């Protein structure tokens, strides 16, 4: 020991005092840290600091590992280590000692130990497992401070796998008499909910109890969980709206203790949390929104003090008002409020004002008009952040008329911005705008050139991809396609003749592809010239090998004529010995194809569009090989993620002593692990790969759905020049109705009434060019809409088989209601009536829908029952009488009831014998009303959509499109195209699951035409539980065994047993069988195996074992997510029992 002291004596004189004068330890312990800190500040170079800290760390290292070091000294050492780590020096040797300190120290030392642990480790660190026991012990301590410390560390980080070990203890703390303990326990559960939602699913009713806690602090903490849950599933918590409103009302009314005030504002954090929850609940839901209108009004009124915190509340309030179902009176107040933000001299408020405008402008573009001068000022603001936010706002109001000015502003910003993230984001936006609104070819190509050169190699790869796709697929007019391509070729040739060395790689790749493909369009240009230009690129130093192979491919397409061939030969010789195999391959291709023009014409036919290449994504041609290999004893293939999971699984196993239960007995594991049947193996494989291809496919389709207004003859430049230089007009902020009918926006501009001073003229001019098109024209509404649909399909549907193109259409037009609204606004819509009407048309469904769902063929009765019982048990303390009324969904559901009976008679005859879900109202648009239900057939699930026409005239050209991310939807039988007056037509869709989810949502769009009217459309959505798709799967125990091995996705969980029977296992399985339509394969002793399938043929196997009073369930399936979703439904089914 004295050796140690001597060694460190020179560096740390104070160390001595610790050992020699134990009495003065109090003082010296801090002065050692003090000495260290002072020592550091006195140093002059980084190097010296490094030396000092290294010395310090080695001294600490020796001390901590010495057996004589007391916990008290350890605490002091730990503080110094934390300091060193903060300076950026690694001290991993101390981590284990931090855990030891938390474990063995007295309360005080423990506190530092826990702090060190929380600073040193994160929840993925393996050492954290050693902390579990300490936490367990402290949670059970009688000392409140120890319990607090344990809960604090648990809420900051805890290994996910170990949650079950401490969950019961944390749950218990929800009933603790001390509010601080309850609060921390709630936050710990919130943390668990975030990292492992499955684990805390069964304690949702305890969250309700926390929400009703008499201590406002505990209630506030529980809101974190509710915000999260409501964000994920707003439908499930509509019944709580009235409670949240009541709480907010009391908070705003100052009913909370003064303790919660912040600068005399009552509990602002709580207020904002509630406002955010309300906006999720009220989104697209009129009836729920109505409950909150009053309290929002009050919040706006009360928040009048001039202080940041009131502005924070106001901002959240405005956001909420614009998110929920609109109420004009509130919108007016909110708009005024935004005005206060925008016009504020405080820069932070201005920033938020711009942000609010960005948010609001989609619903109410005239607000941007009102503040146009401020926006112009912000565009020139010295603070880049403000500028950036202004551009974001302009991006939202871009239309075909102002696109050139806005894009120019964005490019200007891009040139000065140094932040990569901003560049990537903004470049993507410019590209999007250019594709949507380009006025002409020239502008488009030049803008894209700038995008490619500024965006460089950082930008999203889909920008060049979609640009090339656009060029190659072309538009309706062949002549226009040619002009565009020719212009691109010309522009690129001149770029290559300049200084191509400065261009980014991605741009060079685009250039070489375009030149290879289209340079023949320019007749006066010899292929050999292009060849030479391209060959020059190969010699550049900074040319990456990826670019080189693009260049070589382009050259291959171009080798025509003798001179071209000679260039090609030269190049191919250089690269056919390249070390890069891809380059070598390309060089070989170039060599052979340049010599054989016939072969080249076949391999690289010119002018043929991109016909899709048939790809067998399931790799089924390998099935034979696989089965042979398996028969020869090869191990079955496991995808990497599964291998990792299994590795993690074995880790988890070794932790058994902590009370983790193993859901499956080892013996059954081993017997099952023998030979998997080849059949199930390959089906599992191809199942996986098709799943992947689905995902890829849908992503590609979405890209197609992006509206491309750009094209043809640059149609807008013909209509209206974007900016007339001499014009000093601004769009008038206030619209007069007489002008609303005018379609051409330029005529709707009014001259400024007051003469403006010279200096302002420039700004006004800019304003007029920026805000053009936001002016008024109500008639454009329909025009805009129809125009939009034509634009949507303008791009040729090349390169898709018939089947995929129909699905593309569906996804195009049924993407989602908001996108329609969005694009409508971009098309110069100002009339807020129409916007709001559109926004209204989708909601309504809310509680009827959830009701309908709950009643679905009796499978989900559990849900409703549960909710009912929850309501009764746990009425939040702050709730008033109105709660019961508001939570009852009956009032607005009633009118639909008679219709339900009525409509069910329209069910097709062959389905009338089958059970169907309650008929749910989808949407109403004028006289057309849509309702739907689903029917469970043995081998399929049908969605029945009823279209009832209550008008006096027939509705024609009806097209109902249904789509879902999770489902494969196909139309069954003929869809009606016309519905006569006062009658009902029926569409049928067969649904099968692509990707399982707990609840599956369908989005749809109905479009139709009235005889004397223009085309109309309305969005709707429909939701159904996964259980509707579950059917029993009859297999034998042997088959089960082989299938079990083949499936890669699994999940495990402990469920509650039903104990009212003598045979809890049988009773529980019977409930599951009844509720979820599972097939019980066999029950042996305390174990049972159950099988089911997800339509059409996706098996899911379940292994149950009674263990320590719970049912340990292990689910396996070839389909990702299916086990997780199913376990959720099992839980609900058992809870409801």
């Amino acid at each position: 020991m004295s050796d140690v002291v001597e060694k460190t004596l020179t560096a740390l004189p104070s160390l001595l005092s610790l050992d020699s004068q134990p009495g003065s330890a109090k003082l010296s312990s801090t002065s050692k840290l003090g000495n260290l800190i002072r020592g550091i500040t006195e140093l002059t170079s980084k190097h010296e600091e490094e030396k000092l800290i290294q010395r310090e760390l080695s001294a600490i290292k020796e001390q901590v590992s010495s057996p004589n070091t007391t916990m008290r000294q350890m605490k002091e050492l730990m503080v110094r280590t934390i300091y060193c780590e903060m300076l950026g020096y690694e001290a991993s040797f101390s981590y284990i000692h931090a855990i030891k300190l938390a474990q063995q120290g007295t309360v005080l030392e423990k506190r530092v130990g826990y702090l060190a642990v929380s600073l040193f480790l994160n929840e993925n660190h393996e050492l954290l497992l050693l902390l579990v026991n300490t936490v367990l012990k402290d949670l059970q301590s009688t000392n409140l401070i120890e319990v607090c410390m344990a809960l604090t560390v648990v809420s900051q980080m805890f290994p996910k796998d170990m949650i079950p070990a401490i969950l019961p203890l944390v749950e218990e703390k929800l009933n603790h008499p001390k509010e601080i303990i309850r609060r921390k326990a709630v936050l710990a559960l919130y943390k668990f909910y975030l990292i492992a939602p499955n684990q805390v699913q069964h304690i949702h009713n305890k969250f309700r109890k926390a929400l009703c806690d008499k201590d406002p602090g505990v209630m506030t903490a529980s809101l974190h969980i509710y915000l999260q849950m409501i964000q994920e599933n707003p439908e499930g918590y509509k019944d709580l709206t009235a409670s949240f409103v009541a709480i907010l009302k009391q908070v705003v009314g100052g009913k909370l203790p003064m303790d919660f005030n912040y600068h005399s504002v009552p509990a602002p954090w709580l207020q904002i949390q509630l406002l955010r929850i309300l906006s999720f609940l009220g989104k697209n839901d009129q009836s729920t929104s109505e409950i909150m209108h009053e309290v929002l009004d009050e919040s706006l009124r009360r928040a009048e003090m001039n202080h940041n915190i009131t502005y924070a509340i106001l901002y959240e309030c405005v956001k909420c008002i614009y998110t929920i179902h609109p109420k004009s009176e509130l919108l007016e107040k909110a708009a005024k409020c935004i005005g206060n933000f925008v016009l504020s001299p405080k820069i932070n408020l201005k920033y938020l004002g711009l942000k609010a405008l960005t948010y609001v402008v989609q619903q109410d573009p005239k607000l941007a008009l009102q503040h146009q001068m401020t926006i112009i000022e912000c565009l020139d603001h010295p603070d880049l952040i403000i500028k950036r936010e202004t551009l974001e706002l302009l991006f939202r109001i871009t239309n075909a008329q102002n696109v050139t000015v806005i894009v120019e502003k964005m490019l200007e910003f891009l040139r000065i911005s140094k932040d990569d993230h901003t560049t990537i984001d903004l470049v993507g936006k410019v590209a999007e705008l250019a594709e949507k609104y380009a006025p002409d070819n020239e502008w488009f190509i030049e803008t894209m050139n700038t995008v490619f050169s500024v965006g460089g190699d950082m930008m999203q790869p889909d920008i060049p991809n979609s640009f090339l796709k656009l060029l190659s697929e072309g538009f309706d007019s062949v002549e226009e396609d040619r002009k565009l391509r020719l212009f691109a070729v010309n522009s690129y040739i001149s770029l290559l003749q300049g200084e191509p060395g400065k261009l980014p790689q991605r741009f060079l790749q685009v250039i070489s592809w375009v030149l290879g493909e289209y340079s023949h369009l320019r007749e006066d240009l010899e292929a050999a010239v292009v060849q030479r230009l391209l060959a020059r690129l190969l010699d550049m130093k900074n040319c990456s090998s990826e670019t080189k192979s693009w260049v070589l491919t382009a050259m291959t397409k171009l080798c025509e004529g003798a001179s071209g061939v000679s260039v090609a030969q030269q190049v191919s010789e250089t690269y056919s010995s390249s070390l890069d195999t891809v380059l070598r391959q390309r060089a070989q291709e170039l060599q052979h194809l340049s010599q054989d023009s016939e072969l080249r014409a076949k391999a690289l036919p010119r002018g043929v569009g991109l016909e899709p290449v048939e790809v067998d994504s399931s790799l089924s041609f390998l099935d034979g090989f696989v089965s042979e290999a398996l028969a020869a004893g090869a191990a079955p293939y496991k995808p990497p993620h599964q291998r990792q999971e299994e590795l993690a699984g074995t880790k988890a196993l070794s932790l058994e002593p902590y009370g983790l239960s193993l859901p499956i007995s080892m013996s059954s594991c081993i017997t099952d692990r023998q030979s998997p049947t080849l059949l199930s193996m390959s089906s599992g494989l191809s199942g996986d790969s098709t799943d992947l291809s689905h995902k890829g496919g849908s992503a590609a389709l979405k890209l197609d759905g992006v509206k491309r207004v750009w094209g043809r003859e640059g149609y807008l430049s013909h209509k209206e020049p974007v900016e007339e230089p001499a014009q000093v007009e601004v769009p008038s902020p206030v619209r007069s109705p007489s002008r609303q009918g005018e379609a051409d926006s330029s005529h709707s501009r009014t001259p400024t009434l007051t003469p403006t001073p010279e200096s302002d003229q420039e700004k006004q001019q800019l304003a007029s060019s920026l805000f053009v098109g936001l002016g008024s024209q109500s008639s454009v509404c329909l025009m805009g809409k129809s125009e939009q649909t034509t634009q949507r399909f303008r791009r040729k549907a090349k390169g898709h088989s018939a089947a995929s193109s129909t699905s593309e259409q569906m996804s195009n037009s049924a993407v989602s209601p908001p996108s329609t609204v969005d694009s409508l606004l971009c098309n110069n819509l100002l009339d807020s009536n129409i916007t709001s009407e559109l926004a209204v048309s989708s909601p309504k469904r809310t509680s009827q829908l959830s009701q309908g769902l709950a009643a679905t063929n009796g499978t989900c009765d559990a849900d409703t029952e549960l909710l009912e019982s929850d309501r009764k048990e746990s009425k939040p303390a702050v709730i008033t009488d109105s709660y019961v009324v508001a939570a009852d969904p009956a009032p607005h559901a009633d009118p639909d009831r008679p219709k339900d009976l009525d409509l069910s008679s329209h069910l097709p005859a062959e389905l009338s014998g089958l059970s169907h879900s309650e008929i749910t109202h989808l949407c109403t648009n004028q006289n057309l009303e849509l309702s739907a239900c689903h029917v469970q057939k043995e081998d399929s699930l049908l969605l029945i959509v009823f279209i009832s026409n209550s008008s006096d005239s027939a509705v024609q050209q009806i097209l109902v499109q249904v789509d879902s991310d999770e489902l494969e939807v196909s139309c069954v039988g003929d869809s009606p195209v016309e519905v006569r007056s006062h009658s009902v037509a029926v569409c049928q869709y067969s649904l099968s699951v692509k990707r399982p989810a707990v609840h599956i949502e369908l989005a749809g769009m109905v479009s139709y035409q009235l005889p004397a009217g223009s085309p109309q459309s309305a969005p709707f959505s429909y939701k159904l539980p996964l259980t509707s798709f579950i059917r029993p799967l009859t297999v034998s125990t042997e088959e089960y065994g082989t299938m079990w091995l083949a499936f890669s996705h699994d999940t495990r969980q402990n469920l509650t047993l039903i104990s009212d029977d003598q045979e809890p296992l049988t009773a529980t399985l019977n409930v599951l069988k009844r509720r979820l339509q599972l097939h019980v394969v066999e029950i042996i002793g305390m174990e049972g195996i159950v099988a089911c399938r997800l339509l059409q043929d996706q098996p899911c196997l379940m292994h149950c074992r009674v263990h320590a009073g719970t049912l340990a369930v292990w689910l396996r399936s070839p389909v990702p997510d299916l086990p997780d979703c199913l376990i959720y439904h099992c839980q609900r089914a058992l809870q409801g029992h």
Partner: protein
Amino acid sequence: MMRFLLLFSRQGKLRLQKWFTPIPEREKKKIIRDMTTMVLARQPRSCNFLHWKDLKIIYKRYASLYFCLAIENQENELLALEVIHRYVELLDKYFGNVCELDIIFNFEKAYFILDEFLLGGEIQETSKQVVNRCIESSDMLQEYYCEGETDFPGTWRKYHGGVYEQTCILTCGLKGIEITAGEEYRSRMYCI
């Protein structure tokens, strides 16, 4: 949800770091570097909000110390600014006229206060009284076990006077201000 909170001096020296989500060490170092350069480069009187990757950075300077809080995109910026402010108030109440030195020499206390105020990236308790009661009850134990170990800031300032000339009280004249209207915050050199 908040992602991290950093306290650093005008010279870019880190004084406190709290990470609310697991982040690898290398990434942490990069973030600290990015934050200090970004925030220190800001002109006075410019906006307190910044964009960084997909996060929003809210920063505020108190005397010689910068508080820098990263929040997720949908969070409320102004509220985050007040989170910082409340933390300063909490420190001030605990230390009494808190200055950078208090945080340097008693950084573990600053962490303890932070842990009572924010937990797992969310607000835990906003009441000054409650947080303080909590810290004090733990400190009481401390004094019971080893009396007088806590160092009081006043002595420290004297003790280290020469070295830390730049240090001044973070919340100059903060206490007892009732907000009426206007710019009283700035006038009190509250936010320099």
